[in-house]
């Protein structure tokens, strides 16, 4: 029995790579296995090169595999770029009609995927699925049940394909590949669903958004669930409308959020400043993709750190968080709402495309404590009072009896009334910014992992944490001592960072963008005498642990 095996399903969009992946993942989880998936897909809806990597393991892993052991190709394009990633003894399963003479791999199994699918009036991916479920020893009943649940309309033809694929596997004489498993059925989920669930738990009752890859799946989840819980969720004309509607809704009393990706985030710049100025709590989720500009809409990158930490003109208060584990996709979302109320600041949640869109197994989650600063304040007496909207711990909202709520994008006094006075501006600026000092001292979920006395220190962002943890645990067997700080709060920059780096000899800042945005952000926290290595991968794919291993071996960075 193996500890882990990694599979790639590859082909063209429209051939069912995603569907196949989901079925395999589901079936594995039901067998108690851990899975991590990553899918590469193009902007064109049908006919573009796509693949999906599935890492199946007895341990929880949250980064892509260093090597692929099995490649299931649905078309000749499936062979693209595989030389670098296939393990030495990898097995390729591919249609018999494809010319594989150029293949570097010795173990190529050619099966009549295309021919059979035409004959059986089934989809090609079902035959491949059948073959793989035989190979991986998946439970036939379980797979059948998943197929039935997922697409009842095509169940019969899918089943035909599945059975045929299994038969072909059995006839192939190949040995089954069995991965060890511990514990019972695992739960698999995408980050997008966790964000939506977290928002709901926190009492988010308003969502407005505009579709944009890779944030759309969060939007779609919220559009489905918020109304179920009695709230309001709308798709609007653009991101300008989205952020301003969310601000209006929050002013009026609802916990409210929007989700977007880089281009939409840039469009929200002015709105984010408005929220910060008026002290209206909002949560903005940015699922990062390859930039700049329209960039590569479907690919993974961590290059919105610059804009997220400097989102608008003027001195605005802002809180920027980047969850570093899949579990934190849930807990950070929950916390965002309460932070934005407590500090009267927009909270920006910076997410990774890879965790947001792809399924992985998840540990049981513990709900964080959640607290609301929203109150309904009843004023007494005859006269109407104006409530100091900004200048208070509490966030009241209209309609409140005999109480008026004033909030403003224009500089104002503590009640929200416009002023021209520079002195008032200065003191209001101090007030807006001053609150955040608390978070500078006590950052959200601060964590130092690995060897706390290590002199080689990793700083990672988002999903890079997993690849680095994996690499470090491998290399620390050779006696190297690594300390690892997953940087989860990007703004305000935690003071603890400086303290933790005091004894560092080498600092590796690991991030996925071309210019080293995280490094720039925190470079003043790194002691002058220490060696700084910027580790960056920015080819649209999530970091693998071998990227780190290579850096550590080379000593380069």
């Amino acid at each position, binding site marked *: 029995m193996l500890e882990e095996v990694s599979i790639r399903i590859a082909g063209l969009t429209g051939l069912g790579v995603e569907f196949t992946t989901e079925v395999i993942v589901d079936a594995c989880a039901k067998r108690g296995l851990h899975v991590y998936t990553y899918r590469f897909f193009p902007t064109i809806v049908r006919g573009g090169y796509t693949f999906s990597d599935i890492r199946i393991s007895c341990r929880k892993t949250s980064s892509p595999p260093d090597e692929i052991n099995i490649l299931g190709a649905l078309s000749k394009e499936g062979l693209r770029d595989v030389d670098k990633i296939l393990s030495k003894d990898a097995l390729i399963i591919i249609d018999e009609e494809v010319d594989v003479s150029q293949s570097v791999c010795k173990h190529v199994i050619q099966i009549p995927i295309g021919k059979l699918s035409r004959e059986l009036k089934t989809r090609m991916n079902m035959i491949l699925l059948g073959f793989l479920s035989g190979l991986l020893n998946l439970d036939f009943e379980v797979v059948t049940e998943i197929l039935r649940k997922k697409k009842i309309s095509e169940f019969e033809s899918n089943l035909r394909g599945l059975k045929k694929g299994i038969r072909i596997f059995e006839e192939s004489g190949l040995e089954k590949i069995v991965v060890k498993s511990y514990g019972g059925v695992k*739960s698999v*989920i995408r980050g997008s*669903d966790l964000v939506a*669930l977290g928002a709901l*738990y*926190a*009492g*988010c*009752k*308003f969502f407005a958004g505009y579709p944009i890859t890779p944030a759309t799946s969060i939007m779609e989840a919220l559009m489905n669930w918020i*109304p179920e*819980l009695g*709230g*309001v969720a*709308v798709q*609007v*004309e653009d991101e*300008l*409308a989205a952020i*301003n*509607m*969310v601000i*209006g*809704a*929050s*002013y*009026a*009393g609802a*916990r*409210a959020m929007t989700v977007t990706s880089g281009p939409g985030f840039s469009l929200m710049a*002015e*709105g984010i400043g*408005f929220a910060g100025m*008026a002290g209206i709590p909002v949560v903005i989720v940015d699922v990062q993709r390859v930039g700049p500009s329209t960039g590569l809409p479907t690919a993974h990158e961590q290059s919105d750190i610059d804009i997220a930490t400097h989102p608008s003109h003027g001195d605005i208060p802002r809180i920027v968080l980047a969850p570093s584990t899949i579990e934190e996709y849930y807990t950070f979302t*929950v916390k965002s*709402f309460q932070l934005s109320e407590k500090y009267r600041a927009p909270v920006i949640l910076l997410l990774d495309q890879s965790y947001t869109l792809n399924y992985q197994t*998840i540990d*049981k*989650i*513990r*709900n964080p404590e*959640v*607290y*609301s600063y*929203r109150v309904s304040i009843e004023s007494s007496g005859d006269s*109407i009072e104006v409530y100091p909207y900004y200048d208070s711990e509490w966030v009241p*909202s*209209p*309609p409140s*009896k005999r109480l*008026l*709520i*004033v*909030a*403003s*994008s*224009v500089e104002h006094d503590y009640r*929200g*009334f*416009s002023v021209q006075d520079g002195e008032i501006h200065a003191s209001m600026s101090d007030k807006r910014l001053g609150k955040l000092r608390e978070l500078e001292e006590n950052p959200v979920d601060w964590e130092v992992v690995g060897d706390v006395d290590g002199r080689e220190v990793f700083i990672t962002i988002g999903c890079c944490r997993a690849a680095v943890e994996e690499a470090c645990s491998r290399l620390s067997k050779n006696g190297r001592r690594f300390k690892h700080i997953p940087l989860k709060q990007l703004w305000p920059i935690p003071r603890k960072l400086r303290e933790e780096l005091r004894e560092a000899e080498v600092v590796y800042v690991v991030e996925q963008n071309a210019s080293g945005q995280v490094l720039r952000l925190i470079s003043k926290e790194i002691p002058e005498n220490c060696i700084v290595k910027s580790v960056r991968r920015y080819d649209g794919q999530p970091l693998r642990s071998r990227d780190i291993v290579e850096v550590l071996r080379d000593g380069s960075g």
Partner: protein
Amino acid sequence: MGQASSVFDRSKPKWCPGCGNFVVYSCLKDALEELGYRPEEIVVVCGIGCATFIWSYLNTNSLKALHGRVLPAATGVKLVKPSLKVLAVSGDGDAYSIGCGHLTHTARRNIDLTYIVIDNGIFGNTRGQPSPTTPYLSPTKISPRGWPEKPVDPLLLVAVSGATFIAQGYVGNPSSLREIFKKALKHRGFSLVNIVSVCPTFNPKRTITTIKEKILDVGLDSQRDLDEAVKLLLEARKAGRIPVGVIYSRDEPTYNDLLNANSDQKSIVPDLRVLEIALREFGLEIEC
């Protein structure tokens, strides 16, 4: 002009002498009073510009929003607190230049709010540049040879977009304006009140007298269907007339109706019902 002190007075209005905004402000205050509203029941959402200073002077709940983003912000308010009466206030630049896209979308959603646009044909607050309602080919400070854009026709624009109440007032006739406001405020659904106004400081060519000459009174009780309303507007435009009164009014389901969002939102925190969803959809257990 609203001299007696009112529950809606916050502070003394300040605009240039002769500014049309004074008239609008006092008519609006009167209309709110006459309809028996209380300040706490109302939210005024404003953009940026001289027109929108109304928010400072009017004693209500208020949200001073961004330039051009009044309607999305006001929509957000209405969607979560349907019990509130929502007024949105803009100038012609705020509403029809930078805010033009949102106008169409808000109209077609039939959001239940009243949009008051004070249309003085100029960007007043930025000191006198042409606006989307500046006349075609007229000389301006930045286009001595004539302004090269045909004006936006806000009434037609919202008519074809799906607004359910369309009216136009003008500052030369306060009593009619007050009545128009009352009609608009009583309407359930998206109502636009465009108010032909004056900016003596930066648009001195347009005066109450020059406006008056072009007024076409269309009454306050429109029975027109959309075709007739559009026809009226097209004809008035061709004839160089300014129709004043209620041009179109019709009952239709609002966005809140269709979203089934007719009660005020209160965030229940934490919302434990989500634990069921997580279990049902993903077999995911979340501990408390």
